[in-house]
């Protein structure tokens, strides 16, 4: 039934020459939910985002956004979606308000709605007192908030967030999380790509972990954690030789392990846990298990 899903990708493939950026990807965003797209750099997250606005055209597969089939009906889909890009592309010599007015036009708001829409966007971004400030005079956090507000000026049913908090201070990041959470509570569908695991864990109803253009796991963060990493982990510290030994022993016992840099985390415990510090498993454990320890 149309409308049940804000986004559906079925077997989407996108190639750039010999490189397969998106490789038979299946992805669903049920309406009114926030889905996190998690993966290391180069996993295909940004390409997936570009497919959804028809700024990249899939070589194979089916893509529907808000019930519209892409790429043919992408313009309608874009009219009802908002996009927050990874790279800041605000008009820096314009004021905060002017940036929003431009997008009120681009999103085809009527003359009477424009003023109210800009005011509302300013309020969402808490930039009411910066209305006439030029963008190049704003702090990094304010610019990000404006970038998000700009995507919301026409009250989209779907918001695509591409790495919304990359490169920001923890305080600013938390501020933006509150903003995204507010959107979700209002029933807006959200697809958010990120490589900050905590971000996905906190905000997403469901997470899809991508690796080499494919979805390697999908589900609510809690379910993914217990399925792939178990409920508890043990961190073993020591010399490199001791770490290698602990790793070998755990693997021999049928347990999963991951290196954290300073320790070996033993996961999927089943009774015979090694000596070490116990802690709750998290999404990062799943992420590293599924996308590999080596940086490709």
């Amino acid at each position: 039934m149309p409308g049940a899903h804000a986004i559906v990708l079925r077997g989407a493939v996108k190639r750039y020459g010999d490189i397969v950026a998106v490789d038979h990807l299946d992805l669903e965003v049920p309406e009114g939910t926030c889905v996190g797209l998690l993966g290391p750099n180069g996993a295909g997250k940004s390409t997936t985002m570009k497919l959804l606005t028809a700024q990249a055209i899939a070589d194979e597969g089916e893509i529907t956004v808000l019930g519209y089939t892409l790429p043919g009906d992408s313009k309608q889909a874009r009219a009802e979606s908002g996009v927050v890009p990874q790279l800041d592309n605000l008009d820096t010599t314009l004021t905060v308000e002017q940036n929003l007015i431009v997008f009120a036009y681009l999103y085809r708001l009527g003359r009477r709605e424009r003023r109210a829409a800009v005011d509302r966007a300013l309020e969402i971004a808490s930039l009411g007192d910066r209305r006439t400030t030029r963008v190049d005079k704003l702090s990094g956090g304010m610019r990000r908030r404006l970038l998000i507000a700009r995507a919301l000026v026409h009250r989209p049913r779907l918001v695509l967030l591409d790495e919304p908090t990359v490169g920001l201070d923890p305080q600013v990041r938390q501020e933006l999380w509150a903003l995204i959470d507010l959107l979700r509570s209002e029933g807006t569908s959200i697809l958010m790509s990120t490589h900050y695991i905590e971000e996905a864990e906190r905000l997403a109803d469901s997470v899809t972990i991508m690796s080499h253009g494919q979805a390697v796991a999908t589900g609510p963060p809690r379910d993914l954690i217990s399925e792939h990493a178990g409920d508890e982990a043990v961190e073993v510290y020591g010399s490199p030789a001791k770490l290698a030994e602990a790793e070998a022993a755990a693997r021999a016992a049928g347990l999963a392990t991951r290196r954290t840099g300073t320790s070996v985390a033993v996961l999927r415990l089943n009774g015979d846990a090694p000596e070490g510090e116990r802690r709750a498993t998290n999404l990062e454990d799943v992420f590293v298990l599924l996308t590999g320890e080596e940086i490709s």
Partner: protein
Amino acid sequence: MSTVARRTRLRRLERPALLGVLVREMINFSSYWRSTTFSATVEPTIYLLAFGFGFGSLVSTVGGYDYVEFVGTGTVATAVLFSSAFPAMFGTFIKYQFQRTYDAILAAPVDTEELATAEALWIASRAGVYGCVPLLVAIVFGLDVAAGMLLVPVFGFLAGFGWASFGIFVSATASSIENFNYIISAVLTPLFLVAGTFFPLDSLPEWAQVLAQFNPLFHLVQLVRHAAFGFEGASDLGHVAVIVAFGLLMWRLAIWRLQRRLVD
């Protein structure tokens, strides 16, 4: 079902999409119009004064016209070229490569065709206005006012649309901003010099005169002179036709290249 009515497909070249891109340009223009207007007016005026009085002291009349009047009408084409091809080349490159503005616009309900068209329309409008500056300067220096001059902004707009589209096409094709040098030296400079702006073409060898027929700038120079000194009927319609054909060709080429550049 209400969703069916909603599902009518949006058309091509829609007015709201063009308007959105134009509004962005207009609001941006309000922040930099002084510098643009300065260069668009001062540059052709310097050409006019330097050639008009420099050469004018050697040759008093050319083709039956006062040399200052000859150059004053000719540099309209120069002003149109400078205020359309160059902003289109550099502006487009900066907007897609450095500022990523076009990524933002194409994420809204705007297609590449609408984006390129609106950008060309905007630059063409500016070129139509700035093109009048040399004419006004020439009037100050004694050129007689004629009713036909009212059409000069229209001619400037038509030619400006072609040159703006040319600039977008070049920009979307070039792999780096340095490559513009090839176009500027090998294409724009000869076209600009061999357009009948500073000297009449009938003194050139025959092959050069034939080639000049393919130079849209030559046809603009002719139109502007005739607007000031009297139209020549069918031949002027021919000049308009060449400029319009140039505009249409460049417009489609610009869309084609920009689409390839912006959509993977």
